[in-house]
């Protein structure tokens, strides 16, 4: 590239009017060893841009870790959620079991021991139960009789109301 064309291109570059192709021409031009003194810094600038473009990651190690992360992570995630869900269910079961145990313990402690298993003979137990039920039904019978007496009051009240409304 002759110097006048170079100056022209540089001018375009500074005013932000160069195309990508023209910018590449400038970069390529300044890669050459021979550069006049006054353009030394400009050359360094374009060389710096070209040099920076070579800056790269450690390819193999980076790819390997990334692929491991990307593929391993999803499997690990699935495993983790599976384990987590079963742990949750297990925790629920443990809570229910513990609650049942405590309630049973509480009931046993509060219930008087003499009530539990009073009779060893099933026949005797049956007789006693029958006796107790008979007693209850007898009490119900008595109560019913008493209730009938109360009913008489009701009927009397109704009669009074009838007479008072007819008056």
């Amino acid at each position: 590239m002759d110097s006048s064309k170079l100056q022209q291109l540089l001018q375009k570059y500074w005013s932000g009017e160069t195309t990508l192709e023209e910018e590449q021409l400038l970069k390529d031009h300044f890669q050459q060893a021979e550069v006049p003194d006054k353009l030394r810094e400009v050359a360094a600038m374009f060389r710096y841009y070209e040099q920076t473009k070579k800056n790269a990651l450690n390819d193999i190690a980076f790819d390997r870790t990334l692929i491991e992360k990307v593929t391993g992570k999803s499997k690990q995630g699935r495993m983790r959620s599976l384990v987590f869900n079963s742990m949750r269910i297990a925790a629920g079961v443990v809570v229910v079991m513990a609650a049942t145990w405590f309630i049973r313990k509480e009931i046993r402690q509060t219930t008087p021991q003499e009530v539990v298993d009073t009779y060893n003979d099933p026949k005797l137990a049956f007789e006693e139960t029958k006796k107790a039920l008979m007693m209850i039904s007898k009490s119900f019978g008595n109560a019913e009789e008493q209730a009938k007496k109360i009913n008489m009051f009701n009927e009397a009240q109704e009669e009074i109301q009838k007479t008072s409304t007819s008056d």
Partner: protein
Amino acid sequence: MNLESFQTRVLPVKNKLYRFALRFLGNEDEAQDIVQEVFIRVWNGREQMTEVQNWEAWCMRITKNLSLDRIRTMTRKQTQPIEEGFAIMHSAPSPYESTEAKESMSRIAQIIAGLPEKQRQVIHLRDVEGYSYNEICEIMELDMNQVKVNLFRARNAVREKMTKINAYGL
């Protein structure tokens, strides 16, 4: 998208993403971390990839957003401003970078590192990576005018600082 097409189509863009993230963060490990995160996101959202027209620009945009998030958390955590980190990174030349040309290249790196963020990113995308203006608009989520203005200012700031260095040795 299966793993094979992910490896052949998406993965090769990694160095561009890395350089872009590095331009934001100035730290190689952090940049690498960002690139990894971008790819994990792309893989997890691979079902929607078919709807994306320019997936390279899409990846670059995710890189930009993640890098900006990272900068925010970094500035919250550290008391030392990020720009200082940049200066350290670029001002310490390796033994191989002792020639004069290398020195002036490292000065350029410093000048660019000192630019405001948008200008720095736009000049990187254009002059290092060679993206078209439309692509830069898509990546940076800016309109054409903003992209051109940022590029113009960035190039001229670089030029001005280079002239100062030449004239006064500053």
